[in-house]
């Protein structure tokens, strides 16, 4: 009984302390993001009211009314306190250009982005880890060289260019071969239930392929490199000496020990999935957060920019914190 209690004391408390430290750090980061997002985007040159009314006959009285409506006539400190107060209650303000609550626009676009980048994330992570592991295990062979070469090539290709290429080949068709996928958008419209789901899946194929093709290389290379570092380790020789099959040595011994950098990358990518991929969303006219961010910046639609920035940053902070919390479980040396 005694040794067990001692184990709990030594193993449990440091982890909790470690986890509390990480959570505290995340909370401070979130606060910093909230403050930064307010001031940072006020450095963008441009008067939103002038931009919104550009090209229209607007009287001076109307311009003043706009400023009052959006609180732009208030001193900066007052705008800031208003912003913080509302943000704490989940109110991220009203979009200048869409005249809708920022949170509504974000919640409309967020699922679309998560569907696209989330699907791609799962696929490129699995593909990257599987191919990276295999490449490392048979490093130097033809398969490895091929895998690495293809991954590096695709990783170097601009995603919008690859997207357009896929549209030309698989959506429009080349020569006598007609295209079979939609050229863009997320749905045809007017469909419900199962037909709607199938329609969305149909629209999802090309943008997901584009994202997977461009992104999987990074995971592959990190996994391969991490595993190569482990390859000469004594414990692997020991495992083989025990008579374990090569396959098992790889999966049960080498891969788990080499996983840490990959896990970091996976969580960083997971955080990025919320931000979407602006170029791919643009090429395929995907109605997600990436496109929304671009539109917000071009005005600049300050409440929307701030809201999106806060959501993006929060996702990254959250995922990094999660990764930090998982590290000690994968490698007990972390967090001691």
């Amino acid at each position, binding site marked *: 009984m005694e040794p067990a209690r001692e184990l709990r004391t030594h193993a449990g408390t440091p982890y909790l302390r470690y986890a509390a430290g990480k959570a505290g750090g995340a909370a401070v980061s979130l606060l910093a993001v909230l403050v930064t997002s307010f001031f940072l985007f006020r450095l963008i040159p441009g008067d939103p009211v002038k931009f919104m009314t550009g090209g229209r*006959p607007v009287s001076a009285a109307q311009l003043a009314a706009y400023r009052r409506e959006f609180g732009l006539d208030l001193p900066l400190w007052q705008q800031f306190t208003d912003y913080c107060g509302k943000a704490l209650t989940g109110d991220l303000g009203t979009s200048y250009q869409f005249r809708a609550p920022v949170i509504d626009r974000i919640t*409309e676009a967020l699922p679309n982005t998560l569907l696209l980048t989330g699907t791609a994330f799962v696929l490129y992570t699995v593909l990257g880890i599987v191919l990276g592991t295999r490449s490392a295990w048979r490093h130097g062979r033809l398969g490895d060289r091929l895998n690495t070469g293809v991954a590096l090539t695709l990783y170097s290709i601009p995603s919008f260019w690859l997207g357009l290429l896929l549209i030309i080949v698989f959506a429009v068709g080349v020569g006598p071969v007609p295209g079979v996928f939609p050229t863009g958008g997320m749905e045809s419209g007017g469909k419900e239930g199962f037909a709607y789901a199938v329609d969305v899946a149909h629209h999802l194929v090309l943008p997901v392929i584009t994202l997977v093709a461009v992104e999987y290389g990074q995971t592959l290379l990190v996994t391969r490199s991490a595993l190569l570092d482990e390859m000469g380790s004594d414990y692997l020789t020991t495992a083989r000496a025990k008579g374990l099959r090569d396959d098992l040595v790889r999966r049960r011994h080498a891969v788990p020990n080499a996983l840490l950098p990959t896990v970091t990358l996976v969580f960083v990518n997971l955080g990025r999935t919320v931000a979407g991929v602006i170029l791919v969303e643009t090429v395929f006219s995907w109605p997600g957060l990436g496109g929304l961010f671009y539109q917000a910046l071009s005005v600049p639609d300050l409440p929307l920019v701030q809201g999106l920035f806060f959501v993006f940053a929060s996702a990254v902070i959250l995922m990094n914190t999660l990764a930090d919390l998982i590290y000690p479980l994968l490698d007990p040396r972390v967090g001691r």
Partner: protein
Amino acid sequence: MSTQDQHGRGRSRPDRPRHRSARLVAAALTVSAALALPQQAEAKESDAVLTVAVAQSVDSLSPFLATRLVSTSINRLMYEYLTDYDAGDAHPVPGLATRWKPSADKLTWTYTIRSDATWSDGRKVTAEDAAWTFNKMMTDDKAATANGSFVANFRKVTAPDATTLVIELKKPQATMTALDVPIVPEHVWEKVGDFGTFNNDKSFPVVGDGPFVLTGYKPDSYVRLKANKNFWRGAPKFDELVFRYYKDQDAAVAALRKGEVSIVAGSPSLTPAQAASLQGVKDIKVNDAPGRRFYAIATNPGARARNGQKFGDGDPSLLDERVRHALFMAVDRRTLVDKVFQGHAVEGQGYIPPRFSTYFWKPSATQELAYDPAKAARLLDQAGYRENADGKRVGKDGKPLTYRMLCHATDPNDKAVGQYLKEWWGKLGIGLTLDCLDNVTDPWLAGRYDLAFDGWSVNPDPDFVLSIHTCAALPATPKDTAATDNFICDRTYDDLYARQLAEYDPVERAALVKQAESRLYDLGYMNVMAYPNAVEAYRTDQIASITTMPRKAGNIYGQDGYWSWWSAVPADSGDSSGGSSSTGVVVGIVAGVVVLVGAGVVLGLRRRATAEDRE
């Protein structure tokens, strides 16, 4: 023990990969077949659907808030205005009002509202609806967001009976037949609480009286409208109209090639390369129409406010009319049209593009600032800016003339034209620096520029583009913002502007507008270089015919009216529902099956081949 166990479990594996592969292939086949379904479903649709690819996202579907072209165009389809513009020459024609008449003192306008118009929920459209719409805009700042300027001069609006609308003005206003204000149903809109946030995009169908009824909307995806079979002018020929959002115009062009969309809108215009790639393609027609925009060089005439205070840092040499004229005479407009616009534009002359024939004015031969570099050089000499030993033009202070020019970073035309200007003005001894910015509005309104690329879309009624050069458009103080375009303030021009606005006789008014244009040209603050065309393309196998505006050779998208979409006739053979051919589906399925089966076989063989290794 563990080794044996693991070994043992390993031995039991040989069958598993085959099962897994088979399951994978089966699942993939199901998905592949399912993914092909939407096109089959689309092909079954019997309704004629006209799909328009648009690049701009909808800001709002409320006619009180919408300001973007795509949104106002959709509003125009949903709600009637008092008057419409003729598709031929854009003169006012009956809309919701069948007749209109000003009083002798020019301060009261009486409109007769048609009695054969109904809202899509079956209620009659009355003058009360129109009066309520205008009154709402006059009393609620938020309801005046989009179209407030139209009611700024209104004193009172009443509806004495169901078919009579009376508008009393503060001062005469010739634009009373060009009130681009959608009239909404009072019985629906009186229930709206906050006009500043109500976007009219949640509950469908939206009650309207235009040629189409809004039936669905998803932000940045699509806007769907059904034909209004009871529209007073007659039902549209297409059953449904869909605006589909394409962020990337190359993708939109690809969608047109495939037949997913019926037309790629000309806003923004197709690039010369895109237009060239579509020329001669089967079933596609490129519509290279005269545009409604002008593209100009603007000078900073010395920024100033209405209170007389000067601000900004425009080069003082530009206050000399001879210098401005010299700059413009060194611009070869023909070359710009040929090289930069690659023929998709018309050489610029007066302030209003030729498509608005009523108000189009061009300078006489003696008045014209034609391309003449030698004369430009002489003008500069006369103005006291002679070439020094280095070939630079210098003033009395000995400083060489070098101008900063504001250009839009996102507009390739600005950059290309800027290079030509550098060369042409360089030959005169004048330096040029291009300040290409994402946002030119701030330095512009602060007067911190010498020259700028300028351009406006002109409405059938020229009042607005003329008004931005009046002294009244200057900001009240340097800190204020205002509608001024270039701080131009000239009493002679102002007088002509005021007279045209108070002139109700169309012929007299047009003459005054042309005099105002002539004055603006002589002042030399603006040099209209070109009228860029509106280049768009549509599928002739989906659209048999469509009305352009102007009717003879005009544009389709962004008209001043609903003529294009209301008049469009579906092609007999057109599968306008936006799917690809069934051959495509079959080929797609077969290709998918081949790839997946191949992958399954390779996986299986690979497993078998390496099984020994692994064991």
